[in-house]
């Protein structure tokens, strides 16, 4: 596999050059009016560069492909118009874009969401168009955070799934592993074309082994038995009430999650125009499954908490046989107000033996 060497002094120049052909997205520091700082993924304005120090963002970059609120259809309510009340697709910009500095686990997460939105029978046009238009330029994680357990979940700090390029920070330079043609096209557009020598591959492997060891040294999350458990045994297991006790049923875990794909459809009208939106929804909200009849099949919080973990760690695994629907980014562990830790829940599920 080809490795390109990028001198950090040439980085900003190359990024600027790539803007001629790509809309860029990346992590930037945001400061609110009370001076609280966060890193967020956003579209980069001219002159704005992604932070490449391996920062953790509260939210995942899924919003680049799947915005929290997305306008999808519109229609006119003006009966004098021939096409009144006919919903038409909103014209969105799907020109080439690149996400710079996305983590390996986030790129992997998007491939999992893709399984849901791009199937043989149905293709969500909004997702598919955005996903196809995007080049993913990943940044390997040299120093994994304390909550990173991606190696247990089929990804890893240097994982390549879903990425087009993987950048590895090597002091004065980035070593760019070219994974797809799409990735090569981006690097060409940025003018990054100095092939690294043989030692680069070895260097990347060393850094990778080091990063993976950092994660492995911490508690391991077991997923090996999940596949052989029966759904009903786990569903009816006695531990759900205890896990759910502290849950306040907010949407934090699902909104920070890179693989949560559920959405809700809302229509809004103003005057004679109507717009249909797609909004992120959360299985933690009671409204999520409320039927028109007033009946709610997941009316109490234990059922909702169980749904979240069962979907991620069991239903998805059974349906697609592509591992769990958790990539181990640790964002929900970090952000949950009541410290419900998916690593613990996963281990409990993985080790559960029903009483015969």
């Amino acid at each position, binding site marked *: 596999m080809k490795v390109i060497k990028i001198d950090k002094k040439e980085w900003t120049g190359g990024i600027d050059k790539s803007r001629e052909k790509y809309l860029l997205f990346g992590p930037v520091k945001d400061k609110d009016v009370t001076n609280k700082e966060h890193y967020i993924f956003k579209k980069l304005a001219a002159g704005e560069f992604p932070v490449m120090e391996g920062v953790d963002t509260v939210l995942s970059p899924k919003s680049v492909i799947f915005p929290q609120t997305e306008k999808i259809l519109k229609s006119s309510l003006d009966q004098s118009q021939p096409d009144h009340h006919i919903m038409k697709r909103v014209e969105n910009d799907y020109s080439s874009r690149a996400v710079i500095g996305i983590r390996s686990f986030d790129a992997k997460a998007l491939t999992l969401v893709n399984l849901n939105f791009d199937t043989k029978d149905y293709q969500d046009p909004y997702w598919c168009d955005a996903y196809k238009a995007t080049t993913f330029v990943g940044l390997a994680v040299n120093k994994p955070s304390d909550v990173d357990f991606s190696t247990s979940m089929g990804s890893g700090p240097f994982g390549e799934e879903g990425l087009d390029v993987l950048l590895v920070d090597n002091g004065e330079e980035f070593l760019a592993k070219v994974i797809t043609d799409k990735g090569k096209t981006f690097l060409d557009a940025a003018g990054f074309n100095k092939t690294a020598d043989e030692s680069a591959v070895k260097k990347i492997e060393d850094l990778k082994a080091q990063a993976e060891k950092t994660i492995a040294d911490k508690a391991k999350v077991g997923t090996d038995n999940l596949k052989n458990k029966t759904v009903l045994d786990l569903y009816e297991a006695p531990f759900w009430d205890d896990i759910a006790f502290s849950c*306040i049923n907010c949407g934090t875990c699902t909104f920070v999650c890179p693989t949560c794909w559920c959405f809700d459809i809302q229509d809004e009208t103003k005057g004679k125009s109507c717009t249909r939106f797609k909004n992120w929804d959360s299985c933690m909200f009671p409204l999520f499954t409320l039927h028109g009849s007033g009946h709610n099949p997941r009316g109490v919080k234990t059922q909702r908490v169980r749904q979240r973990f069962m979907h991620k760690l069991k239903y998805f695994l059974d349906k697609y046989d592509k591992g769990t629907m958790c990539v181990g980014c640790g964002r929900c562990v970090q952000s949950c107000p*009541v410290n419900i830790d998916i690593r613990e829940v996963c281990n409990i599920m993985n080790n559960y033996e029903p009483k015969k």
Partner: protein
Amino acid sequence: MDSLTQKIREIASNILKEGRVDMVIGFAKGTIPMTTKPYMARTPEQVENFIWDKNCTLNLANYITGRKEKIGIIAKGCDSRNIVNHIVENKISRDQLYIIGVPCSGMADKHNPDELRDNCATCTHRNPVIFDVMAAEPVEEQKIDDPFADVKAVEAMDKDAKWSYFEGLLQNCIRCYACRNACPLCYCPTCFVDESGPQWVGKGQNKTDIQTFHFLRAFHCAGRCTDCGACEAACPMDIHVRAFTRKLNKDSLELFGWEAGLDITKRPPLDTFNPDDPNDFIK
């Protein structure tokens, strides 16, 4: 082990053994540094999981709403005030509760463990106002010269500056509703933002809809908020949501001489009529 943690476990274990309560609600150690999780012990063995430290930032009164069992609950100053609110608002009865009071010297800021969190720095009710037993001797209450200096700073701004301040505060809100759900006051079966027939508020990331949620949620807390800070402890985006409720707390104090949750025999001011109520606003 910390003597307060020891004492809490001892009391909790005793009341479970004696059958005075069916469960005790407290805090257990979290899985990452500087966190705790609300925890319910049903057996004397489980009380060994209880801890007490500077990170018990949530409000446990949130976990007793509408419960039917006999409950032991560990309460710092603000939790106890919200328990009073719950009793006054008929969300639980006093006889159901066995309150283990914990004098509190303030919780740590979630990003700077060496500093007090904002609301604890201006707290004047560190000792529980209602309890069945205290886990330690009361601590000295803070004397705060100007508890509402932050609110006054906003009041001094001109109207456009105020508006851009509030717009700026809410620009990162993701509508996860953690602030609302962590709040012991927010127990409505269906919140106005979740109501779908009629739908009062748009559900997308429209800034006016987000502002409407925060503005009205705050107003629903008028005369009830104890400034416990659970909303900010819960917010994943670190939004200063107390900026709204603090103003209402200041108004409650100035207009009605009222601080919420101090006395189970008194109705909150917006719940009662008094001929002396300020009425300058009515023409």
